[in-house]
């Protein structure tokens, strides 16, 4: 900007030297040139900021001015050339527009292209991730490989296929082992049971021996029950119980109450029923086990003179019962062999319940509210 002023000064000097006249700028030049007679002889130049009155726009503007001196016809004149900064700012603005806008546009295009590229590039990876998450050792569906031309991903893919098949076969082996072990244990258990029955017939049986026998019977029946529960888990896992039919759930529940009535009466439990006639397409056996577990749980972990509320609607079944102790861990209670110290059960009842619900794709939830245990099963 200062250069422009210098140039203007030169022009003024040339003009005055050539035409013997004082140069007046054209209006379009947007310059203000003022002349003043002076006695000063020095030729010093001053360049500085100033505020001046723009006669065109009728307002004060900021500007830059250059002060110097010239000689015309032997007179000394002081020349002040003032250039408006506003004009200049506008110029800068337009320059910026011309440069920055395309740059910005370019940047945006670059970003979009990048995004699109990355997305399509990582697509197989994302699909792979979804497939890995969907993979379940418990289900028969094999791991779905993803088709991709990217070497790293196809390597990952094949590594996971190997891994999944290994995990599956190991899991299957463990299940088979559990099943076989449990079956093999049944025969010795049958032997123990029959020997106990034989001993019981002895005429020499006294009070002491009878007490021993009672304990042995209890231990054997517990071991049997444990074994049966393990087998049940394997069976549900293997989807061996698929004798589905339409069953009126409300009636099944009423029948179960009759089955358990002595146990309910003994503990003086009150049963509140709200049963809507609901029919489900379900395996008879699974339903049997499901209800047995819910009932025995609600009866066993109850207080004397407590209550059991059973709510059945078309969408859910809720068992609520009063309890000895407070709420239980909502996640841990469904783990195998998790039980509180007072429980005489196998610790498998609730995990069987959970397994059945998983198998039937029902949602099973436990909550503790208003001093009641709630077991909620949502049919979906």
């Amino acid at each position: 900007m200062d250069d422009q002023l210098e140039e203007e000064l030169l022009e003024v000097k040339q003009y005055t030297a050539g035409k013997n006249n004082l140069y007046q700028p054209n209006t379009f030049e947007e310059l203000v040139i003022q002349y003043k007679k002076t006695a000063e002889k020095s030729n010093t130049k001053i360049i500085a900021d100033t505020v001046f009155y723009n006669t065109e726009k009728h307002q004060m503007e900021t500007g830059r001015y250059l002060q110097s001196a010239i000689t015309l016809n032997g007179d000394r004149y002081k020349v002040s050339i003032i250039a408006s900064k506003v004009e200049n700012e506008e110029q800068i603005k337009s320059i910026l527009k011309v440069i920055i806008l395309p740059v910005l546009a370019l940047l945006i295009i670059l970003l979009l292209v990048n995004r699109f590229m990355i997305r399509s590039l990582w697509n197989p990876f994302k699909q792979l991730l979804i497939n890995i998450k969907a993979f379940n050792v418990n289900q028969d569906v094999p791991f779905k490989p993803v088709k991709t031309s990217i070497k790293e991903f196809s390597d990952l893919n094949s590594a996971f296929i190997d891994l999944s098949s290994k995990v599956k076969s190991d899991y299957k082996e463990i299940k088979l082992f559990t099943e076989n072990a449990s079956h093999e244990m049944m025969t010795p258990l049958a032997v123990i049971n029959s020997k106990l029955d034989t001993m019981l017939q002895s005429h020499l049986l006294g009070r002491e021996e009878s007490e021993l026998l009672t304990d042995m019977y209890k231990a054997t029946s517990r071991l049997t029950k444990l074994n049966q529960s393990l087998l049940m888990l394997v069976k549900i896992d293997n989807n061996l119980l698929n004798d589905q039919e339409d069953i009126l759930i409300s009636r099944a529940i009423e029948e179960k109450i009759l089955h358990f009535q002595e146990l309910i009466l003994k503990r003086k439990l009150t049963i509140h029923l709200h049963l809507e006639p609901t029919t489900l397409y379900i395996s008879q056996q699974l339903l049997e086990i499901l209800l047995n577990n819910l009932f025995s749980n609600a009866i066993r972990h109850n207080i004397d003179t407590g209550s059991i509320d059973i709510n059945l609607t078309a969408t859910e079944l809720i068992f609520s019962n009063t309890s000895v102790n407070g709420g239980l861990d909502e996640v841990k209670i469904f783990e195998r062999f998790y039980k509180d110290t007072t429980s005489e059960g196998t610790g498998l009842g609730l995990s069987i319940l959970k397994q059945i619900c998983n198998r039937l794709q029902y949602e099973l939830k436990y909550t503790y509210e208003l001093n009641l245990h709630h077991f909620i099963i949502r049919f979906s």
Partner: protein
Amino acid sequence: MKILIVEDEESLQKSIHQYLISEGNVCDCASTYNNAYQKIALYAYDCVLLDLTLPDGEGLQLLKFLKKMNKADGVLIISARDAVDQRIEGLSLGADDYLVKPFHLSELYARILAIIRRRQFNGNDRIIFNELEIDSQAMEVKVNAQKVYFTRKEFDLLLYFMSNKSKVISKSAAAVHIWGNEADMADSFDFIYTHIKNIRKKLTDAGCKDYFHSIYGVGYKFVES
């Protein structure tokens, strides 16, 4: 009665044998498929106890063989495997009942008797014990020809004890008989006590003698005198 025990586990076979003999039955034992095959072919039995897994063959093959020979023997399958398919296959091949190991000897004997009753008396199966008479088909109990009302569970229990006359039945066995697999409930043993008490009261009120005898808290015996 003549009963064949097909079971490869020697000690279990021995216990069953002993129990059945003490009830006055005639028993044969077979530990292998071939042995069993010969006995089935040669003799007629009232009931065959059939283990499904034998060292040299499948028990179900023996069942097929029996049916092919048109034998009238009753068949009770005793198996360690509690698979629905196997149960259905066994029963559809003509077995009369299916008992899963482990079982109580009293349960086994009650089932054998039920099979024989069904086969031999064709529905008219009354069990008479002095003044007591029960009809297992109609589920009726009569004392001196007078009907006494029994609940389903009480009736089952009475029939169970009468099938195993003069044998001690443990509370554990009785509980399994009534409640099945749910019998592990903490106080199901007490219920047997309550049920027996009720049965005794109903019978003695109707003028029947008290045949139940408690054995030191471990079980009960249904016996004369």
